[in-house]
């Protein structure tokens, strides 16, 4: 009897944990009857190992932590700042893979109201001591591979998420940073002597 119950639970967990979502019926049955004992055992698994869908979120992600500086300084007009990178460049180990998963999870969580901002703040706060600074920029970079048609092209880096995390008077503050192009300095194209 226990075996039958487990096999039903296994089927519902696979059906109820797919990236495509699940029906209300399957979700309710799983959550009410099976999740309470299968979750603690780490058996509430979908096993939908897609490996890749060729989407940006399937690309390699990494974390970059740097002391917060003004935009112009970071764009090359100021002193260079040390950047901590997780995982380190060329780290192909399982340990490195865990940092990449953390980076992906941080980006994906921004779409969830309950989880948004939680990980970026935690990453920043945990790394204050390592970076020796209480005002950091946390940037998650995804290294997107070219399509097969342009296979000879190089991978390109995209900023998937960028926030500033700082501690002021013991309080943690999270400041979203808009994409660089949105804060680029305006160039006055008006003719000398005034336009109008």
């Amino acid at each position, binding site marked *: 009897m226990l075996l039958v119950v487990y096999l039903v639970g296994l089927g519902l967990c696979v059906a109820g944990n797919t990236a495509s979502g699940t029906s209300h019926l399957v979700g309710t049955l799983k959550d009410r009857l099976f999740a309470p004992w299968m979750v603690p055992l780490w058996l509430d698994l979908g*096993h939908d190992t897609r490996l*890749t*869908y060729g989407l940006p979120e399937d690309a390699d992600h990494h974390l970059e932590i740097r002391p917060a500086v003004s935009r112009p300084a970071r764009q090359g007009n100021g002193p260079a700042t040390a950047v901590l990178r997780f995982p380190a460049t060329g780290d192909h180990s399982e340990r490195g893979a865990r940092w990449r998963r953390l980076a992906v999870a941080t980006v994906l969580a921004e779409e969830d109201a309950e989880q948004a901002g939680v990980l970026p703040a935690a990453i920043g706060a*945990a790394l204050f001591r390592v970076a020796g600074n209480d005002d950091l920029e946390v940037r998650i970079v995804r290294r997107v591979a070219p399509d097969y048609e342009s296979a000879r092209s190089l991978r390109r880096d995209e900023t998937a998420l960028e926030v500033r995390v700082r501690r002021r008077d013991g309080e943690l503050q999270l400041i979203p940073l808009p994409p660089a192009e949105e804060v680029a300095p305006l160039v006055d194209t008006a003719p000398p002597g005034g336009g109008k």
Partner: protein
Amino acid sequence: MADRFRSSIAALGAALSTEWNRFWFTPAPAQRLAVVRSLAGGLGLLLAWSWAGDLMAWFGPDGIVSPEVLKAWRSPTALSLFDVARSSAAVWAFFLLGVVLLGMLTVGAMTPIAAPLAALFWASLLHRGPMLVGPADDVLAVILWCLAVGRPGDALAVDRRRAGGAGAAAPSWRNGLALGLLRVHAAVIAAAAAVAQLKADVWWNGTAAWFLAARESTRVDLTGLLAGSEIVTNVVTHAIVLFEIAFAAGVWNRWTRPVVARAGLVGWPLIGLVAGEPMWGAAMAILAWACVPEEAPER
């Protein structure tokens, strides 16, 4: 007429019951499960090593995965022994205890205790940092719980030597049950992977292998080979999916099972390497080993 119907139903029920009992509860020798035990313990140690390097950065008192982060992340029913470890020393103590349990499982020392406790440790570790967990961790969790069901310490184990048993232990229905569960999970995981992949265009248009190989994190650089030939790229992509389907279906047929299970010993690690998930490939190869039929009697 009604009597004939009733007797047919009864016969069918009896046949199903016999087949069910034969599949799940036929006593099996411990050798195959013992090899699964050693390999799973070894893989567990390797995976534990990948957690150890950054244990404090993730789970330390000032680590990234703080209790507040977990609150937003975990299911309300999730539990972890690590939740009570608030200091660095306590986190390390729990972790090292788990490593010792995995080591005991590998060599088969105090297996009846080590197997369930290793599974409990592993589930606790994964619940402590769910966003860091990869597919190899998931598969290992399943294998460890299956080992806890069987008697994997009855062969190739320190326990066996201590007991002074030079000969093999008697076959046990618990070993048969554990091997049956491992086979079911092997098929389910392979099928679920194939279904997940077939939802995406890249697995149909044959370019998925390119996206796997072009990652910076890949262990084997196939980009030169794949970029040079679209046909090769298509072959690799389709071969992965076809292998998964063949494995999921093939382990249920007495003629195909020996072939696909043995092919899994090579195929899964190769897929793992190409996909940049070598540990997952290794974990699936362990499941494939559990599917290789005993020489006799046929289960």
